[in-house]
């Protein structure tokens, strides 16, 4: 059954609020999604009924809190098709999850001249950790270019992967919306003897995720873009890799034993979760995946394809050559992220004018400055959609855009 954004909106308390006396038109879900009532309630419920520290308490409350944390891990594992719950590492966000791989697997396995391959459409979160290893270890960073249609240019893939140790790619571009051929890339990486990491931050919220089908070795994503709270992200990795990887941060929770002479690490996944974990946030993420499963991820994606198609048609028909929407033109090949340029007006000014109509879009480089350079612009305006958006939001964007002319077009 198709999603009904009107009903879904009722699940999101923030949708009741007005901005500048108008209905909120939220088109920035690629930055962060809103939170449905069940997620907010789960977090409140945790603090009101279970709050205590996990794993070492023998009293009832601590047992329940531990069970709530591990139940959230089970839910997330189930949601992404992980074969074991222990393959789910809770991190602060996707950035920390990627850094975890760079700092642990990377430091243990990479050396001078070892190639790591990424793409031109990566978020800074999947660029800077590798730049840091270039500075620290002298690894070689290679870039898969993009074509003018927003897809990866895989012409030279074999050459780029020659000798590579890791291929790390965003499943969906946070700027162009491009859905990358992850399985094909993973197979090519493995054939070349490299491991495959997927930054699924813009994928897991919108498409059914199956880490086994992806063929990946590492998958990172964040909770707050998929109806969950901020402060929780996930690294999924194959058990055999996690077993061999050295720990990330040192401290409580991640140890088996500590003496004056040294320490030994706890079992996976706790080996990678030093300190008190984000318990309430994990519980919230568990509620978020329940919520999304309730909607059905196939339906979530169908809704996105339909709405993206409507948005592309509406904006292109109304503004023609005055608007440039970056990325693939086929809704089926992309997510609901529309980066656009309008009449040469700076995105910062476009976003400011749209705000007057309570239309929330993001303006800037979207943490993808190398991609901006490839696109030949310093910034874009970006409208991004989710389950609570419908055609009326797209219409509001299209209407409000014309207001920019008043100030900037003579």
């Amino acid at each position, binding site marked *: 059954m198709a999603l009904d954004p009107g009903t879904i909106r009722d699940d999101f308390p923030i949708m009741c609020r007005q901005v500048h006396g108008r209905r909120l038109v939220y088109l920035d879900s690629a930055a962060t999604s809103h939170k449905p009532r069940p997620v907010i309630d789960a977090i409140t419920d945790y603090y009101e009924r279970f709050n205590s520290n996990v794993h070492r308490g023998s009293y009832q409350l601590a047992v329940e809190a531990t069970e709530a944390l591990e139940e959230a891990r089970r839910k997330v594992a189930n949601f992404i098709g992980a074969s074991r719950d222990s393959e789910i590492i809770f991190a602060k966000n996707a950035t920390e999850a990627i850094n975890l791989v760079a700092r642990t697997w990377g430091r243990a396995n990479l050396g001078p001249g070892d190639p790591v391959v990424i793409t031109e459409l990566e978020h800074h979160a999947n660029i800077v950790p590798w730049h840091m290893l270039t500075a620290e270890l002298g690894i070689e960073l290679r870039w898969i270019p993009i074509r003018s249609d927003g897809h990866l240019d895989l012409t030279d893939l074999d050459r780029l992967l020659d000798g590579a140790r890791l291929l790390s790619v965003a499943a969906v571009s946070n700027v162009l919306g491009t859905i990358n051929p992850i399985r094909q890339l993973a197979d090519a990486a493995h054939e070349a003897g490299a491991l495959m990491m997927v930054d699924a931050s813009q994928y897991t919220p919108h498409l059914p995720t199956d880490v086994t089908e992806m063929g990946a070795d590492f998958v990172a994503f964040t909770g707050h873009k998929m109806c969950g709270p901020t402060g929780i992200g996930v690294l999924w990795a194959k058990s055999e890799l996690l077993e061999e990887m050295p720990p990330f941060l040192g401290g409580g929770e991640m140890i088996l034993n500590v003496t004056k002479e040294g320490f030994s690490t706890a079992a996976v996944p706790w080996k990678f979760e030093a300190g008190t974990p984000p318990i309430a946030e994990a519980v919230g993420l568990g509620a978020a995946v329940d919520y999304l499963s309730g909607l059905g991820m196939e339906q979530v994606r169908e809704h996105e394809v339909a709405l993206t198609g409507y948005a592309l048609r509406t904006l292109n028909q109304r503004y023609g050559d005055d608007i440039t929407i970056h990325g693939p033109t086929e809704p089926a090949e992309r997510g609901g992220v529309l980066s656009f340029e309008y009449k040469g007006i700076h995105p910062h000014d476009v976003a*400011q004018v749209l705000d007057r109509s309570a239309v929330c879009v993001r303006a800037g*480089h979207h943490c993808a400055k190398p991609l901006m350079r490839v696109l030949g612009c310093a910034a874009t305006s970006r409208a991004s959609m989710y389950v609570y958006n419908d055609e009326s939001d797209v219409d509001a964007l299209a209407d409000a855009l014309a207001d920019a002319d008043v*100030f900037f077009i003579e």
Partner: protein
Amino acid sequence: MPDLEDLYREIILDHYRNPRNRGELETPPATRAEGFNPLCGDEVIIYVQVAEGVIEDIKFGGQGCSISQASSSMMSAAVKGRTVEELQQFNHAFRSMMSIEPDPDDPAPTNGNSPDVKLGDLEALKGVVKFPVRIKCATLSWHTLTQAVEEAIADS
């Protein structure tokens, strides 16, 4: 919300559409500095030629929103031909208009604590204060000019 008309005043839009002193200067003798606004990706490049304590010439380049471009244009028109001392007074007065606390590292104006600086066209940027996220757009060119002038003096 504050009126957008407060932000996008006609004089600002005029400087945006018809920027003064946009271009490049040969380095050397001019000094070049780059400024970035990491939030939105705006970039400003300032070329400045300083001789005997006077800003003899100034040009700016880069890309940015109407506020950052207009601010660069207005600033260049205001400081061209002025002394470095006068620039410091302008900078101080501008930052104060932008509601920015004085930077303890900034050289204090040398002709008294509250110099009667006429900001002229730059006064039009006052409305930016009502849109706090845009203040950095307005101040980026000033930071960059300060940096360029410091480098020019250090090199001389």
